[in-house]
């Protein structure tokens, strides 16, 4: 449904272009939850903004239902079908106004089908009584769910959420993730997050980003079984969970220049890694590491 092809994007600063994300390939199918996982600063938000066409893309293409959104006429069609919920929109409800009021505003004060709103809210296990409440009276978790429900009122085909679970406690996170599973029946979802745990609980396919590049992508199950990139392997191994209590992490620091984006933190480097690393693919499992599968046999693994 949505195909991102070799996309590179960035920002203008002092009339100079700074590229932030490079050569991104990503596919979103119908009713699929796509997870974008990576540390802060890896380019996740830039990628979402580039997909929305909010920022300049220096190369590549975005194909929506077979047509490039960069071609005349197609962009507005795409914009009508894709909604991007920025990270700070989770805090952007007017605290003293009722949810009903905020929904009215969403429809530019034209009349809207209140029954539809109510039924959508109940479908997402949100008590329609919430509609009468002021945003201030909602808990953090409730507010996040309401913002997402409101985004759905426009019946998007693609819903993009930037760090939707940030700031939520475990129980609220769980409830939010459950709602997303429900929503997936109506729309495709792209979620960016640095929370390994939350993403693997719901995403169907996960793209791992590092320094502006996708370094691995696969079905969540394939990733749980086998990692092709050392960075993915590291973030799935060193998760601060009770079950990992006695695990010791010894960070690596190399001093190399160029080549692989992970070169200075990778325990498995050799001279090949200073070259440009192509993105390869084995049965739908993509990766950007020149030493796979060789590194799996290294002594320090």
């Amino acid at each position, binding site marked *: 449904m949505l195909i991102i092809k070799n996309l590179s994007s960035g920002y203008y600063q002092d009339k100079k272009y700074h590229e932030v994300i490079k050569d991104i390939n990503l596919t979103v199918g119908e009713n699929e939850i796509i997870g974008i996982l990576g540390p802060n600063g890896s380019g996740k938000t830039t990628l979402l903004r580039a997909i929305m066409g909010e920022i300049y893309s220096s190369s590549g293409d975005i194909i929506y239902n077979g047509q490039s959104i960069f071609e005349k006429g197609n962009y507005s069609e795409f914009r009508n079908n894709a909604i991007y919920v920025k990270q700070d929109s989770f805090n952007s409800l007017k605290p003293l106004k009722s949810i009903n009021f905020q929904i009215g505003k969403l429809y530019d004060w034209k009349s809207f089908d209140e029954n539809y709103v109510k039924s959508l809210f109940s479908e997402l296990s949100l008590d329609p009584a919430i509609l009468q409440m002021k945003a201030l009276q909602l808990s953090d978790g409730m507010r996040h769910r309401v913002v997402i429900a409101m985004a759905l009122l426009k019946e998007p085909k693609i819903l993009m959420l930037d760090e939707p679970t940030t700031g939520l406690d*475990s129980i609220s996170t769980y409830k939010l993730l459950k709602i997303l599973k429900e929503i997936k029946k109506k729309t495709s979802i792209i979620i960016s997050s640095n929370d390994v745990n*939350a*993403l*693997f609980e719901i995403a169907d396919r996960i793209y791992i980003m590092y320094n502006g590049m996708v370094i691995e992508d696969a079905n969540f199950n394939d990733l749980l079984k086998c990692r092709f990139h050392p960075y993915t392997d590291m973030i799935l191994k*060193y998760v*601060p*969970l009770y079950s*990992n209590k006695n695990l010791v992490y010894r960070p690596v620091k190399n001093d190399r220049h160029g080549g692989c984006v992970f070169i200075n933190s990778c325990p498995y480097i050799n001279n090949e890694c200073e070259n440009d690393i192509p993105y390869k693919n084995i049965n739908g499992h993509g990766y950007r590491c020149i030493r796979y599968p060789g590194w799996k046999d290294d002594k320090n693994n």
Partner: protein
Amino acid sequence: MIKIINLTKKYKIKTGNFRYSDFYALDNISTIFKENIINGITGSSGSGKTTLANIISGYDRDYSGEVLYDNSQEKKYDYIRYVFQDPYISLNMVKTVEWHIMTASELNNVDIESSIKKFESTRLDYDDYRSKYVNTLSGGEMQKLAFTIAIIPDPKYIVLDEAFSMLDPINLFYMLSLLKSIRKTISVIYIDHDINRVAFASDYIYILNKGRIIEENDTDTIMNKPENEYTKKLIEYSPDYKKRI
């Protein structure tokens, strides 16, 4: 040792026209936070975690009950240090990393070399960072700096209230491991809403719900044989990448 006895903090909340009722942020709690271990406190938003942290570290004096530091109501200057969730509170945005390290060293009479070592123990290179202004750092880097400043005086205790919330998982894993390695010299009170992270870091865990400690025990007992239904719920809902919703 920090001991709290019958600690209560209540607010008046408006429930109608001219009607108010009491809301207990902390409801008559008594316990002990031991030395040389990591004491973990967890519970949902609004359970009273931050209120408790504010009181123990001396920022909030409006409560009833008692807080004793080594059996005394007064605490020595460098007895306890607090790292807030929001690093903006304790850092000066328009000063450099070096300014922060120097100032903290001078104020606490410690030599700069040992402060720099502490900074570098958070896995940031001092030479790379010294001349950077705080407002150019990422959230995670700011939180590491705020942590460094808190441990510069070698306090007996540090209280961390969601103080690593902006770190990505690998850095979080690293920082929690660092806490484990310093706990014999600096005792830790670690507050986090995720019971799994708390269990990863802590030796002993307190479960807070609605202003009360509903269960406390050593980590293995809490995680393997929780008694309270709410504790069981926290464990069940805690995100874990090996589970599927």
